[in-house]
């Protein structure tokens, strides 16, 4: 018995929306999905007319759909934005070089300028080399910290006013859960914000237009629109702590589909009690990037890598960091602590 689309009631429904459970035909789904992103952009006032916007493109499903939808909405509603693609090459053989091919294809399809920045040129280290030194447990920290700065540097090179990333509802909900599990109050406060504050030089404000789109709907959209993307798990990621939060969120979604929005709603309504000490934003002494500590995390991690002490930025070795910076020699025991690598 064919089920009719619950929006137009004319065509046959071809899919069921994970978000609300309604059955929709292709066109109505496209329209609903695009319209929701448009409403998000309007309600949160993400862009101004005439801005140069960099789309952080990794070649994965989120950024492919983001590029497609941004171009579409830009034309449909006359945002007046100048769009371009920005991509980061972490130097992971077999994973990143494949996905970069997708980005290059996207560039041709959407006729958008593309800029690729790599860890090699910015820091002198590829992720492959880093993993060889660090092992498989804490490598995601390195990649994430370096990528953040890489995106900003790339954005400055391209002279964009804003970056938009493809973070979706599942990502934000996972982050809320992960921050609760890790007790990271400072991040908990900031992680549900749809755009970042834009103070300081060297920092480009970034936003998440897809913040309220479910991951499954993004895949459905890409599938029905026949968008091509690269879909493999990063080979170095299986041990990340985020995986626990992700599994839990997926289970929650299977019990109650609205859970993802519920978690986000909870996150948006949390704030920190008054009187608690919070980190203050300053700048790094060495590179001038924003940082809440005297040295930004990238510099600390790089220092550790260059000296062969990979655990320098991981865990709490403050005293040891001070010692190193003031050129004092470390005792053997301390060196061993910083070198210890678990595979």
């Amino acid at each position, binding site marked *: 018995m064919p089920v009719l689309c619950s*929006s137009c009631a004319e065509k046959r429904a071809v899919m069921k929306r994970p978000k609300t459970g309604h059955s929709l035909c292709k066109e109505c789904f496209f329209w609903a999905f695009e319209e929701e992103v448009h409403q998000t952009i309007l309600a949160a006032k993400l862009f101004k007319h005439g801005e140069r916007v960099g789309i952080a493109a990794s070649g994965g499903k989120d950024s492919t759909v983001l590029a497609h939808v941004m171009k579409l909405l830009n034309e449909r509603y006359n945002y007046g934005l100048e769009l371009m693609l920005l991509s980061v090459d972490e130097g992971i053989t077999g994973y990143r070089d494949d996905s970069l091919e997708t980005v290059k294809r996207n560039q041709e399809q959407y006729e958008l300028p593309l800029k690729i920045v790599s860890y090699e040129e910015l820091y002198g280290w590829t992720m492959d080399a880093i993993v060889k030194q660090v092992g498989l447990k804490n490598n995601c920290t390195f990649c994430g910290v370096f990528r953040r700065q890489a995106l900003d540097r790339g954005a400055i090179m391209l002279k964009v006013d804003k970056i938009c990333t493809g973070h979706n509802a599942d990502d934000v909900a996972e982050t809320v859960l992960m921050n609760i599990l890790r007790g990271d109050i400072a991040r908990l406060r900031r992680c549900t914000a749809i755009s970042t504050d834009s103070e300081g030089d060297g920092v480009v404000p970034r936003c998440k237009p897809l913040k309220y789109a479910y991951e499954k709907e993004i895949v459905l959209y890409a599938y029905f629109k026949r968008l091509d993307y690269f879909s493999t798990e990063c080979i170095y990621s299986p041990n990340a702590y985020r995986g626990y939060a992700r599994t839990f969120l997926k289970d929650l979604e299977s019990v109650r589909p609205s859970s993802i929005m519920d978690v986000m709603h*909870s996150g*948006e*309504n949390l704030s920190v009690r008054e009187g608690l000490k919070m980190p203050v934003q300053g700048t790094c002494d060495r590179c001038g990037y924003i940082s809440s500590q005297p040295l930004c995390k990238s510099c600390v991690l790089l220092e550790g890598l260059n000296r062969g002490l990979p655990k320098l930025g991981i865990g709490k070795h403050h005293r040891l960091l001070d010692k190193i910076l003031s050129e004092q020699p470390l005792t053997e025991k301390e060196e061993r602590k910083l070198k210890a690598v678990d595979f």
Partner: protein
Amino acid sequence: MCQVEEEYHEQLERAAVPSVSKKCVKCKEGTAAVVIKAGDAYCRECFKEYFIHKFRAMLGKNRIIFPAEKVLLAVSGGPSSCSMLRQVQEGLSQNAHNKLRFLPGIVYIDEGGAIGQSVEERQRTVAELCAVFKAAGLPFHIVPLEQVLDLPTSVLQATGPSTSERPASEYKAAVDHFIQRNSSSCLTQGEQKEPSLPDVQEPHTQSLQQLMLSAKTLTAKEDLLNTLRQHLLVHTARTEGYSKLMLGDNCTRLAVKLLTNVSLGRGAQLAQDTGFSDNRYGDIILVRPMRDYSAKEIGLYNHLFNVASVFNPSLETKTSEKASIQRLTEGFVTRLQADFPSTVSIIYRTGEKLQTACKSSSTGDHGDRCLLCMCALDSAVDPASAFHMTLISEQLSQIKSSGKTDAELPRPNQGQCCSSGGGEDCGRAASGGGCCSSAKVTETPNMKSLLCYSCKLTVKDLSSPDHLPLYILSEAQRRQRRSHMREEISEFLLDDGDDGD
């Protein structure tokens, strides 16, 4: 390596003997009996001291229970609440200086009707618990959950803070005063009359079961049961003259509750749901003195010192892992704790540092409180919020113009106020109740405006809100009438809010 004729040339090292006969880390004398946290081995006496001290410190630090106050202990029969009962007993029986100075009573809510237990099973459990309570020597009340159907609407009306909520600065003065007055006499609680075990009417049980059945998901059932239980507890406290209610939630359970509530959309109410004191009801303050104890510590104490507890099955007993969000979260936290032993304490400490971000009036105006959970409403008007986006999604996925509601369309059938009439379909989830001209109580669109985000989800999962107890439905109607009144005269009102009902 293990050859027969091999000779060992090196000295064999003495392997470190696993610590069976370790000494207590605190007094360094007694033999260790329990290991609490990583590596901390305590002897029996030190453990007992540690346990009791924690209880006192929790009460003393928060300075919320004043001398001679009547405090109701909500005991479910489980290990945490029985342990709490024992701590209160111990505290009352000590000699003058450290004695607990409040007047406790016990209440047990018999939920057998909602779970589907037989009358015999329920009576058996009640008899066991009566024995435990009698041995404690405190006045106790056995209240069947069926009584929730007869509650007055005053339960849902938060009264202002009564005389029981005195500022902490008065605490020391109050204690000194009390000690001077009562140095010779001891606290008496009056005649302890033998409480009669109330008779449970069969039709009441059936109504309760019908209500439970109307909840389509186990998650909604549990949430509803929690709400009803809390209402009944508060009502009992009010009618029997108690000003504080002590709940036996321990640290592990609170960590699970925190994560569950975040998953249910109750982030705004975190501080009240999991904090030490909860003042949403105004005159009755809910207190959680056991919140610093992990489930393991309570289990060890109960075992070592013979604290009696009675097992009571709940809605979740013997259900699968993914049966409900509560069950899923419990499994998740327990498993994570096994790999990362500090998980529970981190979650607990995170909860302590958080509070609501909603800007709303604190007390007084009932229009700002959720009908079911009595917390401040968190349905923000902010257009760039998750709540608003869910409304937009609903709108975009449904028929825009009015048309006949097709039985085939898999749409949630709550929120369509005229679905019973079979005519027009209002479409928008947040529309006013203007089209429902009937005097029926089930005006679901407006009920949505009376509920907080997560209570809305619970009510959405009910097949029909008709089965909700009368007091909830009447209060809903009353609030709707009042808000209509307000709409009519809104242009003439100078002050916005602050006039309580």
